[in-house]
């Protein structure tokens, strides 16, 4: 099973990728604007941008796109022709997914393959996808993956794992799916020195993760807190936008809409968020979560109480996106600390 790690010269990365793209649809971090990136299917190797830290939008889009057509239909006289959109024909490869996002895939698996319901759209993409993880040599101060069961070099969930060694990448083959790529002509066998360098980078990266966020027992703590006055204040600055949940690799709420024209239409599912008032608005006009208090509570309860209850894991992977991009600097680490203090 185990295959020796290889190295890939960065100068040959484009050629390597070109070869990979002959077999796979490659989904890679792409710079959408200066300093803003997200995972997109690339058409040429140059589009992939591995230099930056974590992307703004997480890699969950590869399996659970923000807007996804579930089927299309067309009216022809008295007949209606329905076209399925669930099949995935070509093998897919996510390039350079960070360990936090990969950990989130395993949480999304629990939701989308729960025993009551299996989601074909998610699962068919998942089955057809090879995941190339990418070690974080320089985790940011907002990263707390080591507190949520992961780490900057955690390989779990990856089929292949890349470590940036400067001029080269160290390439580790971790699963059968991953091994399928080992025959690429641009890969050279790694030396012991390369492996040792990767090990050293791993140690340095984990040393940087010096501020633990305490999550032990948070589920039990929150169990007693549904009506705690804590919620009266914690939500106050929240604007009620969806930035945190849409950038979050674990948030997975969606809404289904029919987009209809005279000749036909399509059923689409779009990301939705518990922070929007419309999310919980009922047809009668009654809203069981009438204010930011209930909606912020829902966001935190779902991550740290409801999800653990359902799936024995907290729904946070410590990627820090919600902290970095919140327009009003709502810091989930502070919220957790306050909950711990209750």
């Amino acid at each position, binding site marked *: 099973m185990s295959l020796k790690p290889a190295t890939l010269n960065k100068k040959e990365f484009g050629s390597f990728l070109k070869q990979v793209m002959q077999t796979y649809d490659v989904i890679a971090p792409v710079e*959408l604007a200066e300093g803003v990136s997200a995972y997109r299917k690339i058409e040429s190797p140059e589009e992939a941008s591995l230099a930056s830290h974590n992307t703004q939008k997480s890699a969950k889009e590869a399996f659970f796109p923000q*807007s996804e057509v579930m089927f299309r239909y067309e009216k022809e006289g008295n007949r209606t022709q329905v076209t399925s959109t669930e099949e995935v024909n070509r093998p897919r490869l996510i390039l350079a997914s960070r360990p936090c996002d990969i950990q989130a895939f395993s949480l999304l698996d629990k939701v989308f393959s729960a025993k009551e319901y299996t989601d074909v759209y998610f699962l068919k993409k998942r089955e057809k996808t090879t995941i190339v993880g990418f070690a974080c040599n320089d985790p940011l101060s907002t990263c707390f993956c080591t507190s949520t069961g992961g780490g900057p070099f955690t390989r779990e969930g990856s089929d292949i794992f890349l470590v940036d060694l400067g001029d080269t990448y160290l390439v580790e083959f971790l699963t059968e799916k991953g091994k399928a790529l080992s025959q690429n002509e641009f890969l050279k066998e790694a030396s012991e020195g390369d492996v040792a360098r990767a090990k050293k980078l791993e140690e340095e990266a984990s040393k940087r993760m010096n501020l633990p966020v305490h999550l032990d027992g948070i589920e039990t703590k929150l169990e007693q807190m549904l009506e705690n006055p804590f919620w009266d204040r914690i939500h106050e*600055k929240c*604007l009620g936008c969806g930035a945190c949940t849409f950038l979050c690799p674990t948030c997975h709420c969606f809404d289904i*809409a029919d*987009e209809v024209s005279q000749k036909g239409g399509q059923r689409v599912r779009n990301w939705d968020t518990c922070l929007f008032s419309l999310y919980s608005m009922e047809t009668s006009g009654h809203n069981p979560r009438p204010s930011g208090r209930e909606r912020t509570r829902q966001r935190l309860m779902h991550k740290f109480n409801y999800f653990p209850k359902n799936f024995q894991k907290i729904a946070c992977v410590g990627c820090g996106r919600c902290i970095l991009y919140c*327009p009003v*600097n709502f*810091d989930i680490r502070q919220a957790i600390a306050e909950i711990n203090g209750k």
Partner: protein
Amino acid sequence: MVQQKIREKAKELLANKEVDLVIGFGEGSLPLRATPLFVRTPEEADRLIWNSFCDNNLATYIHKLSRFKLGIVAKGCDVRSIMALALEKRFQPDRIVLIGVPCQRMVDRRKVKKAVKGEILRAREEGDQLIVEGNDFSVSLKKNDFLYASCKACTHRNPIKANAVVGDQVDETPLTDPYAEAKEFEKMSAEERWNYFERESSRCIRCYACREACPMCYCAECFVDSSGPKWLEKGLAPSDLEFYHIVRAYHQTGRCTGCGACERACPMNIRLTYMTQKLNQEVKDLFDFEAGTDPETLPPMATYKVEDKQEFIK
């Protein structure tokens, strides 16, 4: 010191029960950031801060808190938004006490981040300098090189109206043309303009941070949320994203104070304020009106006079 005076004023208002709470800024959890803070007791007022990172427009919180008597720490732009909202009758006139702060212009953290290599772990101000530090660097930057475009163009840094002003009045000469962004945009060809707009709006994730951060966006039901009639779909089709941004801009005609809160809030760094700036410029040229600068005059789109200019009707 401005910060100390803000605290004193907030304490006084709370101790005398003139207000139920004071909305100001507290220390951010990240370098180069402050965070909106809601203060209810005189003791809590010591957590209020003031620096060049207090970049949110606090007027946006009025909508959900208008049942309270509010004290608001307000920069020039916040005050303008509040005055515009007063004209739109969003709160009882005697329910808001303004602690006005002449604004030193706010620092654009994204520009600062681009200027250094490595993660910024600490930042502080020293006069007109900004000292930013990381694990292996410490650099001093000239603050004026890292200001928000909206702050550089601002012509109303002093609060036009306030119950108390803390800090000295500032010279209001802008650092750039007040309509610089719109003018730059207009230099491009029609095709370039469309491409720019298309590229910016294509990054939209429909989180509506821009809408929520904007004090002037408060419709009980935003047109994007309406299902009867359904004006647009909820996905990421370019036409829907573009429609959202165009209509949001147009809804601001004669109401936008150019504070830049929409752009600052965007997690995807979408830059579309040239649109509202262009509309502001048109309103200024046609009606000699600037939102939130006059407590009596209704915005042009909310009123009608026979002598209004109408050359644009062809």
